[in-house]
């Protein structure tokens, strides 16, 4: 039966063009598809592997979404504050001043046998450590709840949910990049630390990328676990604190007297040790030599393996569990 006004010839076509992107949606929606059929079967290993391999394509396709969400998140953090966009710049400066003055002047904790122009080494060492660690820790602690938090959105709007933890990781990296920029600028114009070697700075993009991949992988695992087990968040909060102290942020492993070699090896199992070591090689201009007696490329290589491993495992875990997210949250 036809109950519709037939008298008007043709549709009053609005100026909206038919959209171009029709295919490929199934892949993103997390559903398992054969010839366009969405079935109840859980994703197979091969499909998960394919999906992981296709991650860069997903990144390209949803770049607009990622960009807009990251921008929105940053905006949400700073709009409404009096200082607004000065905050991401001001925070690292304040942080730096605290570490610089407290550890260089007040506590005068100096490293032995160093020339006076390197007095501030402890302050700089801690600042770089805190800067990198904060970005990572924020990503994993806040990221743990990101799927549960956005439960209503996930239930009601079909979109690639892996974007949610990615946004958080990227937001924290952008905030960290502000800090990095301020620090590099300060070293360039102020006599606080020898300026960085421009060649070393070429490592920065790679370091940021690897850090992003590693943080993303860990966040994916935690966010997935949190959906099924809400205790995850509490555990992560404690675990992150423990992790912070076993990572050389406030202490220099080389300077701990009588540290047995086995202990040092244990410290080096920690992927964050390698990340921090690599960052510090770049940011501290490999000065002083006593700290930088290792090989940066080795550390970077080890961290890259960690990053890849955590991403493949984390994303795979996430993909395998994702189809039931909407039912569980």
């Amino acid at each position, binding site marked *: 039966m036809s109950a519709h006004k037939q008298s008007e010839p043709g549709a009053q076509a609005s100026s909206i063009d038919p959209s171009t992107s029709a295919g490929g949606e199934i892949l993103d929606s997390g559903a398992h598809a054969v010839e366009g059929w969405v079935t*109840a079967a859980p994703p197979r290993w091969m499909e998960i592997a394919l999906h992981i391999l296709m991650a860069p394509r997903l990144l390209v396709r949803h770049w*607009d979404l990622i960009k807009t969400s990251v921008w929105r998140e940053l905006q949400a953090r700073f709009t409404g504050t009096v200082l607004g966009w000065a905050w991401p710049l001001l925070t690292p400066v304040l942080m730096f001043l605290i570490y610089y003055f407290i550890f260089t002047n007040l506590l005068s904790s100096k490293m032995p046998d160093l020339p006076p122009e390197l007095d501030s080494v402890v302050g700089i060492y801690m600042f770089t450590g805190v800067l990198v660690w904060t970005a990572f820790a924020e990503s994993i602690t806040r990221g743990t709840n990101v799927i549960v938090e956005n439960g209503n959105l996930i239930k*009601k*709007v079909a979109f690639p949910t892996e974007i949610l933890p990615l946004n958080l990781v990227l937001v924290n990296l952008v905030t960290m990049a502000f800090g990095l920029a301020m620090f590099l600028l300060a070293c360039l114009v102020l006599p606080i630390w020898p300026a960085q070697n421009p060649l070393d700075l070429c490592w920065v993009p790679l370091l940021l990328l690897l850090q992003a991949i590693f943080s993303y992988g860990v966040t994916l695992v935690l966010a997935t676990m949190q959906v099924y087990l809400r205790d995850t968040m509490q555990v992560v909060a404690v675990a992150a604190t423990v992790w912070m102290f076993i990572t050389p942020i406030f202490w220099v492993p080389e300077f701990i007297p009588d540290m047995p070699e086995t202990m040092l090896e244990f410290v080096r199992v920690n992927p964050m040790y390698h990340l921090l070591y690599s960052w510090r090689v770049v940011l501290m201009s490999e000065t002083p030599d006593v700290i930088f007696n290792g090989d940066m490329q080795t550390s970077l290589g080890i961290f890259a393996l960690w990053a890849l491993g955590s991403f493949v495992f984390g994303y795979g875990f996430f993909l395998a569990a994702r189809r039931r997210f909407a039912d569980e949250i």
Partner: protein
Amino acid sequence: MATNYAVEVEGLHKWFRIYPGPFQRIVEGLSLGRIKGHREFSALRDINFKLKPGSSIGLCGANGAGKSTLLKILAGTTSPSAGRYRINGKVSSLLELGAGFHSDFTGRANIMMNGIMMGASKEEMERLTPEIIDFAELGDYIDEPVRTYSSGMGLRLGFSVAMAVDPDVMLIDEVFAVGDMYFQKKCVDKIYELKKRNKTIAFCSHSLYDVRQLCDEALWLRDGDPAALGDSVSVTNEYTVWQRNHIDEEAEHLSESEAGAVSKRREELSNAPEVLDARVYHPQSGEERYEYQTGDDMEIRVWWRNPKPEQNPINLAVGFVYPDMTTVAGMLTHIDGFKLEGSEGCTSVHCSKLNLLSNQFLVAVILFDGEGTHQYQKYLIRENLSIRHGTKDVGMVLVDHHWNNRPEIALPTGSGARIREANVDGTQGHSSGEDGGW
């Protein structure tokens, strides 16, 4: 994957796992599912249907019957537990108003965000934004944070964005309820426009009227089972009948305390007046007919029942309604001062010399209470009225008219900006327009 269908659903089931607590979940997880800690709740059972491009299906049923779950599965936010489905083309869904809106951002920023989330590109959204703003009609509010919006405004914004991304298949959960009549009409128009452009629509509503209006087909879900599937008028009528009778069934498996309330409701229901049937007849030939020419006579007969006419006097209304829900004409007994007599019977309304012009009309019968304020029932006549006219008149109705040349009548004073200087003799008195012919 060449297919003639826009949406195909085959043997779809959905069940949810319900865990008594987090501990059972851990036990089940650690035993790799060998120890079952959950019970299953079945939300949908064996749903099958196919939709051709340009057709629409309405989902009806009580709360918790699985309507929203079905839409969520089709939208891809949750997965089926058994069976399969396939959608050909781009899907857009409006499952909840303002899902994904960030309340601290302006309407404009949310349009961008929401559109991109639904899969449009940034350039596309930049191009579409003026149109969306135009359709949503939020005025200056578009640059205010969404948290300052009323729910109706949120609906407008959400609906506008969902429509603008130009889906091939549109899934709409019950969202119209909050909008004002004007915007509801606009949404309905938009949905018609989509249908004309060969888009497919799945629509879920408690309003059977909307289902009948907007959908060719309907699926009635009863506790997750497909109770009926077919053309929207017969399915919704079946549903209405069931709703009325179901109350007995309900009482059987209810506790005693609830049974009291139910039997009271049953009594109310059995005492409630109802329209039993309504048909359109051609008075001259006396046969049931639904095709008329402008100028024909027509008779609408309504069979009704009212067990307690002394306590609840009733009134009837018969209206002609366009498919887009515009009421073209309405005839009401309480306006005309006509009384329905007895506890059962047939009342007819005779319309002589129809002045409706060519169109399809739905004939709606409404049963009112004695004051004409409360609607007991809305009944749509099964078949649509089709009216044709042979003349070249335009518009919706033929107005009884004739033309005259009246050179002797002067222009009233004060009419228009440019008043001619001539023939103003000052004797016009008060303007005839003011004393209110209405």
